[in-house]
């Protein structure tokens, strides 16, 4: 189903938003992803993904937290919605189920 489909990078961003718990905005998300996954990201991609997630109803946002180093500009702070949680959960369940079904290998 297209509406609920979650891309790999979208899932990553959504998870990060959940982790940051109310402190998620473009830069903090980008930093965390870079730190945890060691991949370099572009800030405009993060923004685009966030708007897409918002359209799908997985995150919600509000403005706030202007600082001097932002040139007095406000942040758009994202937080995860219940639907977002449910989707993440579903995705995790699916993976667990598939992991469990995997035959033992003799590593």
């Amino acid at each position, binding site marked *: 189903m297209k509406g609920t489909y979650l891309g790999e990078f979208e899932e990553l961003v959504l998870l990060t938003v959940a982790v940051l718990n109310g402190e998620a*905005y*473009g*830069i903090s998300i*980008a*930093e965390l992803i870079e730190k945890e996954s060691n991949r370099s990201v*572009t*800030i*405009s*991609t993060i*923004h*685009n993904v966030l708007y897409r997630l918002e359209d799908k109803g997985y995150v919600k946002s509000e*403005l706030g937290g*202007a600082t001097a*180093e*932002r*040139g007095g*500009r*406000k*942040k*758009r702070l994202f937080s995860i919605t219940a639907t977002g949680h449910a989707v993440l959960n579903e995705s995790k369940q699916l993976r667990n189920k598939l992991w469990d079904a995997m035959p033992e290998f003799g590593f």
Partner: protein
Amino acid sequence: MKKHNPPIWADMFLEWYCSKNYIDEVQGDLYEWFQLRVEKQGLWLARLLYFLDVIRFMRSYRLKSIDELSQNSNNIAMLHNYLMTSWRSLTKNKLFSIINVSGLTVGITAFLLLWTYVQHERTYDQHLDNKENIFRIQQDRYNLGEITTQWAAGCGAIGKTLKDNFPEVESFVIMTNSNAILEYNEHVFREDATYYASEDFFKVFSINLIQGDPETVLKEPYKAVISESAAKKYFGEEEPIGKMIEHNGSKEFEIVGVYEDLPKKSHMQADLLYSFSTFVDIVENEVTDEWNWDGFYNYIVLKDGTDYKDFESKIADFIDKERGEELASSNEDVKFHLQPVTDIHLTSNYMMEFKPNGNEQATNFLFIIAFFIIIIAWVNYINLTTAKSMERSKEVGIRKVMGSMRGQLVKQFLVESFILNLVSLLAALLFIYLLLPYFNALTGRVVAFELLDPNMIMLIGGILVMGTLLSGLYPALVLSGFKPVAILKGKLKNSAGGKTLRKGMVVFQFFTSLVLMVGTTTVFYQLSYMNSQDLGVDINQTLVVRGPNVTDSLYSDKLNVFKHNLSAQSEINVVTSSTAVPGSQPDWNAGGIYVIGEDPDKSQQYRIIGGDYDYLEAFDIELAAGRNFEEERTTDPNTVILNESAAELMGFKDFEEALSKEIQFWGDTFQIVGVVKNYHNESLKKSFEPLIFRLIPNASNYYSVKVTTNNMPRTIATIEEEWKAQFPGNPFDFFFLDDHYQEQYKADQQFGQVFGLFAGLAIFIACLGLFGLASYMATQRYKEISVRKVLGATVGSVVTLLSRDFVILILIAIVLAIPVSWYVMDGWLAEFAYRIDMSWWLFALPGLTLIIIALATVSFQTIKVGTSNPVDALRSE
């Protein structure tokens, strides 16, 4: 830590495009990210990446919306409103809009076409790198203080002498024409544009030498360089370098270079260049010492920064010092002028030009016409719009009451005018592309219209802005100046001042049209006058074959056989050979001729025509005294015949008196045996030149064949057959003498046609305006007319009433146009030695035509109103 800033341009760009819904988060995040990057990756890279990020953020949803834009500025909302109102008003008055647009379109089309043509004419030889410093030396010869000959190609010595004596002269080139029949492996062509040129040719003229070394190609004798297209013609795909090409069947030249064809926009035309040292070898004369041998193009390159006018006077002093005595002893004088190479095309029209040049006067005429036409078109717009102002005054009143500022109203009318001008301009560009080939055919030039040329873009932009302002500003100011209360009370009448101005502009339009019409009529009348004059020489039914260049020792015999065999044909009357034919200036110019027994210091210059025994008779040139050359008299090769003009120049009052005299001609004595009546050897632009006829029975330049035939192709075939039998190896080139004679008037004919065309356009535009005004006037006076009709006025009287005003205006225009066009056209006619007088009907005819055209235009509307049923107009109210 020092705080670093992201690149300001990128930031400005971001703020420019980004909607305010997104700017906070985007710019904020970018700033933070930038600071992190500066620490990690350094300032320079961070700035670059910042810029890239700004571009990456440019997504359509982040762009400012139209609403957002217009919220920022009321102007944009107003502009939207102006556009809408303009569109409504234009579509509401369809007739007016169409008249305006067609008038402007025709005007702009005509203007741009003429402009392009004039620019073309004015920018010859711009391809030369060193064009500012290249000059051609033009030579005037004087005798007894009077100019006798003016040469494009002067004497042999001048170029080299200047180079040797003046440090200002960097280099020089000497060139002279070679009439040649060239042959390579069965490819035989007559080449008129081949020249001997000295070795610095490629140094002076930056003509691209594709093959060969520019320093040396023209050094050695019997070497030649060939143009790309001529190389194709002779050698096809073969390698031209090293080929031997045969010249007049007697000499061979080795091709040592190939050059890019000269551009069409050059005063020079040369398909092949031989080394000048060849010429020196052939004539066994250094040439560059010859002060009295004319016919050599001398070009010099002056050092940067030399004032050529100064240098010209230095030449005059130098000639005076070195040659003054010698010249004075024979009452002669010679003056040299420097022609900047880029001016030659428009300003030079002397003996032995490379090809017929342009005419500066005609070009300037057309330039002025261009401006008049576009002004007429703009005037139309002003007239129609102010005339319509009554109808729009209510709109203006309401707008003002609703709080419109005057400036806003002005803007509204300007926008309207801008739209009209823009539409017309686009239509005009389309027309230009469609019409350019026809225009080129008319002018005989290959003019290119380059829309993307920066100058053209500026010009078009200028037309748009000027058109909008000129045609829009006055109506805008008039309309916006109305007092709202007066308008809405219905008290407003068109002001008297506005009416006068409108009338003045109609007068201007018709004045211009009439001047153009008189001009056209005069040009064509002068042309037909010249064609209808008795030339004194019979050029009809004459076929001229250009004589053979490739000849052998038996040439004279062969020529006699040729003449004899052809004359035996029933459809051929006579064949005569000569050095010149009517219709062009004889190439042979001789000075130092005087009557024996008179003072040799009074020697003069004459044009010489050499011909056989039949020449005068064949062309039906009448004798005034004496006799023709006669074959029986063995002494006749030492006789000459003069024309009346030459006899007068020698000082004979009575032509009989001349017959006993002898003249001195280049060291030989010739007996005068006859005087022929003056005839027009050249166009009627020129007065009769002094001619001397010499007996040269085997002259080889032209063979004129007088025919009486019903079957021209067969006759031509007969001549060609005989030609091939006697002169193999020579191409058979012929022309008809009357066509050749007409060629002299070609430029004037083209001028007349172009003039006529644009006169027609001017009248068309003026009539469009008149039509608009008349229809407006008719509606304005609809009720008045209806009342008159109810009271018993006839259709005729109504039409007369309505037309009267226009006729008065046109009469004023005619009165003003007469002196102006008289002055201008009399100046144009001054160029012609034989010319019409500016008679009254040259003005009456165009004037009458104009009145008729104008009345016809107006009558569409007046008759419509005049014949309408008055009830229709009067029942409502």
